[in-house]
């Protein structure tokens, strides 16, 4: 279980999740060593997996119980996503609909957008989304390109807050919306790209 990545903030920054269809042990160890969560979620994209993933990322709950909590309708996972606003960004309509449907089954309030540009509009601060799942292979503006301005905006806002306590969220002035990359090809380069542009995880989409 990932604890206190990088910095000693009270609010545990969302951890990085690597979700892959086929991940070699080497890659998994590398992910762990780099401070990424140790959760590997097998594809295809299931809401139960996504929820378990988020659970890890947000530091909720205790140890990873691989396979145990990953039941449809599991009360823990249901609780996690229930009423939460999730943004799904994917230009593939069938996949978007299926994934959104699955998240909704867990009680999430899902918004969908087909492009990075459209997503950016929704992710302006103050951000009301609990998490964002973003396809990184979209024309025009892909997931990486969309994440960059978001992180810039967050950094700026965080600097301005100057480490002061935000009464509402109880955070130490850390804006950071969890963004999880969705990709159909989890290749090494993609994984590195995710790290570089400060996405919180990489999910292999269908």
């Amino acid at each position, binding site marked *: 279980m990932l604890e206190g990545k990088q910095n000693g903030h009270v609010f545990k920054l969302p951890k990085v999740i690597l979700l892959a269809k086929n991940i070699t042990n080497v890659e998994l160890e590398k992910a762990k060593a780099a401070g990424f969560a140790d959760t590997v979620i097998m594809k*295809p994209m*299931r809401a139960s997996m996504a929820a378990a993933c988020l659970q890890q990322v947000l530091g909720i709950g205790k140890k990873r119980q691989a396979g145990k909590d990953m039941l449809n309708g599991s009360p823990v996972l249901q609780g996690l996503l229930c009423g939460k606003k999730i943004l799904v960004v994917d230009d*593939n309509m*069938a996949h978007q*609909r*299926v994934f959104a*449907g699955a998240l909704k*089954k867990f009680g999430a309030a899902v918004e969908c957008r087909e492009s990075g540009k459209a997503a950016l509009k929704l992710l302006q601060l103050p951000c009301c989304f609990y998490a964002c799942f973003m396809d990184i292979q979209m024309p025009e503006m892909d997931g990486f390109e969309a994440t960059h301005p978001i992180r810039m905006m967050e950094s700026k806002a965080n600097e301005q807050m100057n480490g002061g306590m935000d009464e509402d969220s109880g955070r130490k002035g850390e804006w950071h919306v969890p963004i999880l990359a969705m990709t159909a090809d989890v290749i090494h380069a993609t994984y590195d790209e995710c790290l570089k542009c400060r996405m919180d995880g990489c999910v292999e989409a*269908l």
Partner: protein
Amino acid sequence: MEVGQMQRRLVDYTKSLFMEGFLDAQFLQLQQLQDESNPDFVVEVVSLFFDDSEKLLNDLTMALDQPNVDFKKVDAHVHQLKGSSSSIGAQRVKNACIAFRSFCEEQNIDATLRCLQQVKQEYYLVKNKLETMLRLEQQIVAAGGSIPMIELGF
């Protein structure tokens, strides 16, 4: 035909689609997402798949018909088709797309043309099967019955 018989027929038919590899477990996920608040979920998603695929197959045909084939474009279309087909569990279409993409990488025009034929074939097959299955479901619902859930024991 009474409802029970129709339901059995549907179950057998659906199971055969899994046995023959037309559908994989992802399709079951779709069925599980259908409920009272989302009674037409499967039909909606399958329709999206049909719409996506028809368009992509057209685009692919045009792209491969060019004097100088843009393999990146071709690959992008196949990538989308692979995404749609896997989302609904159309296994054979998905597998055909995977093969297709590897030939795109090699920029092999003959092989990619063959792949296109293959994908088209698989698509029309599964389209036919799904339409038959959905029709059976409609008949059951119209007769006042409910759609049985499939349990896969293999």
